[in-house]
């Protein structure tokens, strides 16, 4: 409960003759401080899916690009990450349903007005594409079909990573809806970061240079978009600064920045063209086990940061829905302006 007036219509403000307040109210009136909105019923499976699906979605184009380039280690790593991501996604989504046995009703129709419907179809098309693509990379089965699957997955994957932002933005929850311009880029950035980080761990230092660049770029995008989002939200961003989302939001930022910095140093140290970085090489970039461990540390930090970013956004939505002031204050201001 942030800026809340529990006096439900009395207020400290004196009423003018026409019953209107003579000075603007600092806090909106409400019905005994009770929420206007009903709190979402989604549980931990949803942010977990945002993370897993987002990572899988950004891994698919990486798998294709690495395969085309002939970087087999990286292609295999990215394929494995994409496959793991799409493997855990349906169970997560189904177990969150109130009636899990009716999960097939998700494909009863296609509705462009429902991001969840669009997402269910994206996931349904993406999963088999990733599976045949992984069959090609990991098992060498049906290379032609596998290549087609990889291309399909590379095109669909990024939409799987970002439609979840549309899903949250298309709600009445203020901290989600008013962040609609930035949320897709927060999700795009942390999907890139987590996909790059996971591939870095699996492919090893010698093959993972593109994955590291992808991870660093993604984390940078995610951090910038998050900062822009919080700035635009203004007072509505309260859950990120004082609510139950605060520890998640802070840890997400810290881990993403630390992970990106670590991987950026590792990449710089591995680049022979940069003389100033050569001294770092034995510490961060070498093929030594120490270099590998440091890269893995950075990658794990990025993965944790991307996951916690989703949790922060999820928790912030719960807090925002429960706060009547978050719903009422902007609407009251809008009405008074009109």
């Amino acid at each position, binding site marked *: 409960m942030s800026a809340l007036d529990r006096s*439900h*219509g*009395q207020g400290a403000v004196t009423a003018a003759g026409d*019953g209107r307040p003579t000075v603007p109210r600092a806090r*909106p*009136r*409400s*019905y*005994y401080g*009770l*929420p206007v*909105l*009903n*709190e*979402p019923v989604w549980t931990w499976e949803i942010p977990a899916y945002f993370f897993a699906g987002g990572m899988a*979605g*950004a891994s698919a*184009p*990486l798998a294709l*690009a*690495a395969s085309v*380039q002939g970087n087999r280690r990286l292609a295999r790593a990215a394929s494995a990450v994409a496959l793991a991501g799409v493997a855990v996604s349906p169970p997560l989504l189904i177990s969150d*349903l*109130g*009636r*899990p046995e*009716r999960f097939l*009703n998700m494909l*009863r*129709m296609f*509705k*462009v*007005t*429902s*991001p*969840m*419907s669009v997402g269910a179809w994206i996931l349904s098309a993406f999963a088999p594409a990733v599976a045949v693509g992984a069959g090609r990379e990991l098992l060498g089965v049906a290379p032609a079909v596998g290549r087609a699957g990889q291309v399909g997955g590379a095109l669909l994957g*990024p939409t799987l*990573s*970002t439609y979840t932002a*549309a*899903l949250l933005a*298309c*709600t*009445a929850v203020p901290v*989600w809806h008013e962040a609609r*311009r930035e949320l*897709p*880029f927060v999700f*795009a950035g942390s999907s*890139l970061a987590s996909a790059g980080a996971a591939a870095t761990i699996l492919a090893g230092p010698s093959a993972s240079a*593109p994955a590291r660049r*992808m991870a660093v*770029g*993604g984390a940078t*995008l995610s951090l910038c978009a998050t900062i822009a989002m919080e700035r635009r939200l203004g007072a509505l961003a309260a859950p990120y600064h004082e609510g139950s989302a605060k520890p998640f939001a802070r840890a997400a930022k810290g881990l993403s920045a630390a992970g990106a910095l670590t991987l950026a140093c590792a990449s710089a140290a591995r680049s022979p063209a940069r003389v100033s970085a050569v001294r770092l090489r034995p510490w961060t970039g070498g093929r030594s086990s120490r270099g590998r461990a440091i890269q893995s540390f950075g990658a794990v930090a990025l993965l944790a940061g991307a996951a916690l970013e989703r949790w922060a956004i999820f928790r912030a939505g719960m807090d925002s*829905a429960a706060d*009547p002031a978050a719903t009422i204050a902007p*609407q*009251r201001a809008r009405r008074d302006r009109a």
Partner: protein
Amino acid sequence: MSDFELPTSSWQASYGEEARERVGFFTDTSLCIGCKACEVACKEWNRVPEDGLVHRGMSMDNTGGLSADTWRHVAFIEQRNAFELGDDGEGGLRWLMASDVCKHCTHAACLEVCPTGALFRTEFGTVVVQEDVCNGCGYCIPACPFGVIDRREDDGRAYKCTLCYDRLKDDQTPACAQACPTNSIQFGPLDELRAHAQDRVAQLVQAGEQGAQLYLADGDDGIGGAGAFFLLLDDPEVYGLPPDPVDPVRRLPAIWGLTALAAGTILAGVAAAVSGGRHRARRR
């Protein structure tokens, strides 16, 4: 964005000859005595389960708000100093009572975001959940700008007011309106109700009730007008109603645009990360 027409609002065309006149509720809260007969009648007729006996300790309202198991909710507001009784300095005390219900929006976010099609628009222009289709995904709940629809915990599906769809089919009045002893809940064709409401609010303002205002009574609000609208004696937020609700799906075209752009950013990011290595290799 105001010219953005959603397919779900064209219900009349989709029903063809079966389309009926749009009906709704006009809840005139100036007539409400807070008896809660509507809550009881609704529960009885629709077999809505009991939803806990909680003593909220805030007013004569222990229900709090609409939920899966409360389809009519009587708000009870005790106000001091909200109006002036002469110049005696003592101020006054008044009770505001209002029976809240699903608004059966013209642009109904719950219906638009429902991925299964469980939520649909009836031939009467109302919004109803099909129990045999709903799979409990929960998307309708945060989509509703009024906090109306909710998921029944032990059942797993979403529930809300049906505007007594079964009774409408038999040309009956919805249970709440039937049970209301003061005619605070008025049921009928929406056009007639709206015209009557205009007269009523003018009458109240003329009688000195300065705070009297219609809420959701015409089509130029953020939900394209409601099938259930209200006459209030104070601002909507005092009754727990959002002052300027907007159907979040109205912004979906722009949201989809940005989502596509963000997806393109992922592709570009991967391409840049991969080709960055190529340039470097060439330099070598």
